[in-house]
């Protein structure tokens, strides 16, 4: 494995928790990740010694808090290779980021007769905001289908993009683990005069990100999935687009003037950051980005590829036809998120037995109901691995599944 796993694990206090005397096996990081000491301590230290308002007051405490908050923006900008820090907008979660794009960009660019393109593997966060706008403005939503292996089926992409104004897609499926060819998709969108909106929620925490190399127009992602705190999300946007858009939420800080008869917007990024911001959360996110950068995102990816190969091997090897793993068997085009059906045991019951062994997996529709319908399932079991997971944990998962099989065949 590409990094020193035992020292990494020691960084995450919750991984040392024992429940009923047994260690926690946290395999739900695609849902939300655990946090290292560095993040937790940065937040409590800031709260104890340095908390103050940002971008509003002028005394030193406030100025230092502002520097901490804006410093986090610079760190995030570097982490995804944004051209300018003010192309990074802090939101509350990736869902808000995608709503921001759908509404603020959409309201000046989409109307009846227009079309946008989504894919069959999108998370609800990249579907519902567009459906809400479509219901209001009457544009068409087209869908990129999937191959049997759970990859995007790009055969008809040109036809789908013909006349479309936007292509919005996930860089990595939160159900299938599929890694999509982001750069090619952005290029295809641009070739048709559409913008490319990337849902980076599942990819940014797990592999290096370069928004300029992608040549994307917007990328949404969340702090809580990349070892950062809850309560803060991210939107990277191309400067020219962010500048051309109307604001999203109205209120303090996003204005340069307010009169009884109207208001003027502030400059980027304030324009999209109305009200008191997630200050402590930005500080924690800054620490998270430092933590990931120190590990090296290439190493994180290498570690996860190794885990994926091993997990797929062991699961298939041990359970054969009793397990149906969704998505591609090729670890080079997938992340460490493994969804599966296990015999005829309902996912909720699988997760129950696994929980008895402290193995935390998600059972459900994973906020991707259109994809679930395609898979012909109401729910799947999903085990998702991250930088702190180990080979041993794969074994524990397999053993717990073994017991599940036994229990439900008895």
């Amino acid at each position, binding site marked *: 494995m590409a990094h020193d796993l035992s020292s990494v694990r020691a960084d995450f206090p919750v991984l040392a928790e024992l*429940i*009923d005397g047994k260690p926690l096996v946290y395999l739900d990081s695609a849902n939300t990740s655990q946090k290292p000491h560095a993040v937790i301590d940065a937040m409590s230290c800031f709260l104890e010694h340095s908390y103050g308002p940002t971008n509003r007051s002028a005394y030193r405490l406030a100025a230092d808090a502002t520097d901490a908050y804006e410093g986090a923006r610079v760190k995030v900008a570097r982490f995804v290779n944004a051209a300018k820090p003010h192309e990074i907008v802090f939101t509350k979660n990736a869902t808000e980021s995608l709503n921001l794009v759908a509404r603020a960009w959409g309201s000046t660019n989409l109307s009846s007769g227009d079309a946008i393109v989504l894919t069959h593997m999108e998370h609800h966060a990249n579907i519902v905001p567009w459906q809400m706008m479509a219901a209001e403005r009457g544009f068409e939503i087209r869908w990129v289908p999937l191959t049997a292996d759970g990859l995007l089926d790009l055969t008809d992409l040109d036809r789908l993009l013909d006349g479309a104004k936007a292509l919005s897609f996930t860089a990595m499926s939160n159900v299938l683990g599929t890694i999509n060819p982001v750069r090619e998709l952005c290029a295809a969108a641009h070739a048709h005069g559409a913008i490319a909106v990337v849902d980076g929620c599942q990819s940014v925490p797990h592999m290096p990100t370069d928004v300029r190399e992608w040549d994307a127009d917007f990328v949404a992602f969340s702090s809580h999935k990349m070892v950062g705190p809850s309560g803060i999300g991210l939107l990277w946007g191309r400067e020219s687009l962010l500048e051309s858009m109307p604001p999203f939420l109205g209120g303090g800080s996003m204005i340069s003037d307010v009169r009884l008869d109207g208001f003027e917007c502030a400059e980027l990024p304030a324009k999209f950051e109305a009200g008191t911001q997630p200050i402590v959360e930005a500080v924690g996110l800054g620490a998270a980005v430092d933590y990931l950068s120190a590990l090296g995102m290439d190493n994180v990816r290498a570690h996860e590829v190794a885990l994926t190969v091993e997990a797929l091997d062991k699961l298939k090897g041990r359970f054969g036809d009793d397990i149906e793993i969704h998505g591609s068997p090729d670890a080079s085009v997938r992340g460490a998120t493994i969804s599966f059906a296990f015999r005829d045991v*309902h*996912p*909720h*019951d699988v997760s*129950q*037995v696994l929980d*008895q062994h402290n193995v935390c997996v998600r*059972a*459900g*529709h994973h906020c991707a*109901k259109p994809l*679930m319908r395609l898979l012909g399932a*109401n*729910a799947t079991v999903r085990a998702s691995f991250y930088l702190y997971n180990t080979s041993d944990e794969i074994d524990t998962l397999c053993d717990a599944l073994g017991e599940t099989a036994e*229990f*439900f065949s008895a």
Partner: protein
Amino acid sequence: MPGLEDLYREIILDHYKNPRNRGHLDAPAVSAKGHNPLCGDEIEVFVLVEDGRVADVRISGQGCSISQSSASMMSAAIKGKTVEEVRALVSRFRHMMSIEEEGPAPDTTVALGDLEALQGVVKFPVRIKCAVLAWNTLTEALSNT
């Protein structure tokens, strides 16, 4: 932590594997759909009420062992009962599941029968929603009569 046997009593697994009263009913039967947002389970309950009695009941949909067996046992328990008796049973069942109920305490003389097997679910709070899904859906269906 309570063991799996507390949750998965034999009779529960039996109802799960051999669900009673599967299917659907046409009008004049009433129906309602329920779903559990946590796990995606979906259920549809059909009830035919004749002369104030549940003349027939059918369940369709998919779900985990707890929600399916609870629905199956419920269907067996309510068939032939008056609507009033059914309501008393629903109240008694919800009370067993320690779901807060407004109003008076339920009539503990109402017999739960096989349904007692679901008592173990209370030790697994997340599963309570699974166990009551069919019951809430039934209540909604009956409100359509």
